[in-house]
């Protein structure tokens, strides 16, 4: 069992998320995170899904996802050189005694304080999961009032994306079944 990052280009239509989620649910996968937003192509969204499973199981779901009519393309980019980021908002308890210490920690992580209240600070942090986990662990001692994470968004580094914008290329990608 390992964590897999799938990236999908899907039609921006009602029900698409449901169609995809149900293929995971049916096989008992727990989706660790899912993030969707507009892509560079009109009417298409890009989705990043993180799931845990064996390579065989994930590949089977990937193929099933690829069959969904509203899914233009989906690839498992776990083994490619990729950039991945997540954003988190952390509302941490802060008193006049602790406020400056929190601000120092936030600085070290190159995170931002985006809201200040009498008894709390809200921190915005971007990075990979480890960085967010570390910051969270450091702030935990002050008392966390609320945490919200976007889940991972990812894309392969530089070069050609495995999800090119060319809408007419065949849907079944080069990931040739092993021979």
């Amino acid at each position, binding site marked *: 069992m390992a964590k897999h990052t799938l990236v999908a280009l899907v039609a921006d239509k009602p029900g698409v998320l449901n169609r995809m989620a149900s*293929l995971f649910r049916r096989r008992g996968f727990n989706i660790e995170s899912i993030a969707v937003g507009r892509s560079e192509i009109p009417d298409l969204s890009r989705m990043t899904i993180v799931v845990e499973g064996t390579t065989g199981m994930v590949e089977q779901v990937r193929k099933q996802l690829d069959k969904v*009519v509203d899914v233009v393309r989906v690839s498992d980019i776990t083994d490619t050189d990729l950039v991945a980021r997540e954003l988190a908002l952390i509302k941490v308890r802060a008193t006049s005694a602790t406020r400056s210490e929190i601000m120092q920690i936030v600085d070290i992580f190159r995170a931002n304080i985006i809201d200040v209240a009498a008894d709390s600070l809200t921190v915005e942090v971007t990075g990979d999961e480890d960085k967010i986990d570390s910051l969270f662990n450091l702030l935990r001692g002050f008392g966390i009032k609320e945490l919200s994470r976007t889940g991972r968004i990812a894309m392969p580094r530089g070069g050609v994306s495995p999800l090119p914008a060319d809408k007419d290329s065949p*849907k079944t990608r080069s990931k040739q079944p*092993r021979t």
Partner: protein
Amino acid sequence: MKMTGGQIVCEGLIKEGVEVIFGILGGAILPLYDTLPRYPQLRHVLVRHEQCAAHAADGYARATGKVGVCFATSGPGATNLVTGIANAHLDSSPVVAITGQVARPFIGKDAFQEVDITGITLPITKHNYLVLDAGSLARTVKEAFYVARTGRPGPVLIDIPRDVFIEEVEYHYPGRVDLAGYKPTLQGHPAQIKKAAKLINEARQPLIIAGRGVIISGAYAELKRLAETAQIPVVTTLLGIGCFPESHILSFGMVGMHGMAYANMAVNAADVLIAIGMRFDDRATAKVSAFAPHAKIIHIDIDPAEIGKNVRVDVPIVGDVKVVLGALNKLILSTQHVDWFTQLDDWRKEHPSIVIRECDGLLPQYVVRQIYEVTRGEATIVTGVGQHQMWAAQHYWYDRPNSLISSGGLGTMGFGLPAAIGVKIGRPEETVWCIDGDGSFQMTMHELATVVQEKVGVKIAIIDNGYLGMPRQWQELLYSKRYVASRLSGPDYVKLAEAYGIPALKVKYKEEVAPAIERAMAEPGPFLIDFVVEPEENVYPMVPPGAALVEVLEEPEIRAKVRSDSAKLPLSNI
């Protein structure tokens, strides 16, 4: 030109070549029904339960190769379709289901007869749509038919709110479909085809295992050419029956749980297995880890998600079976496999598999044989699900393309009669026999009314053993004969048929069988025969659940007879 949503649907159906619709009306779909009289070229067949509308559309689709269409109203009408849609989904049958939905302002408010049918059918359709404006209806209908019939076929549902049927919009039917996310691969990869050809040309014990994909793509000639050129024996899955003539010298029958013992042994011994348009269903493979242990496997299928799903594959080829076989055949050398055939023929002698035991009573296998004899093998057989289905698969010889229509993947009892109605309506010139069990028949026997109202000349043979026979057989063999809830009563089927206005006969003795079938054949319209058979006859051969394909239980009396005739190796040593 301006048209109502209902008219747009009908125009679309006609553009897509639809001639027959199976359905039941109701409040939400009434506006669509109200437009039907304007389109007399659309024949509507009123069924008695929506499940049967879907089964009939499915049967029609399988028999004709065209898309089958069914209508149902919202709520219970739509939910009743579900079993039929799931059945079409698992057997890759092109069906378009159109359901009425409550009017748009009521959606999501638990309105009368409201159900989220697109949500419910999400995992059992190839695709589905909820149409929220009449302006997108034409495109949706076009897409639905395109998706249903291309690639690996399957059911598509279109849910249309009542007020969308009434809404008037400008009508324009799109000429083509452009779906970025749906581009089926038809051509096989040339390098993979080359690899496959090399394996086949070098094989010493090659075997073809062919499935329904051959029938769907109409690759009968290509399959025959491959088998004959390279002298490769052919076995089929249940749904593959009718893709290759069964009395052909290269045919070794059906594989799987109730397949021929020698067919299963052939799979076990093959060094190259060419799987064509089949998906390694667990009823065909038995224990997967012991499946084809010596074989390099070539898998040809149009659905990339089937590759490597159940069985490891050495040479996958994604593409349309007809196209791929056409390309493959150019690379295949003419060969002989004399030793292989000698071996297979020996196994066939040692494990005859479908020899009927001696019995004074009426055996179900005998009934199927007699239907074969009297129809000279020229009928299309439609079955329900259960023991009778296996006997129909085993004891009728299917030499004609696509001549067995049966529920394979979902195993839907009750499929027989409604599917037979669809088959007969799709191919009226064909002799259609519905071979059904008494349990299976009782699930949808209300469709006798449809048979009469629509004058469907289908012949019905009930294999009546007073049991839910397949579970009873499992209880006998696997649950120490504890017959819990498998004993089954039924009506007097002859009186029942007569009540509907269908002539019928009850048959209890061997000598009555052939005359009764002849009598049914002489009748221009429908006919029903209730064959009261030996109640506890079992289906053999049988691979018990969890066992390997070669761990076959054979008919004990026949097995003993063969054993005493010749002291051959026991089955387990092979």
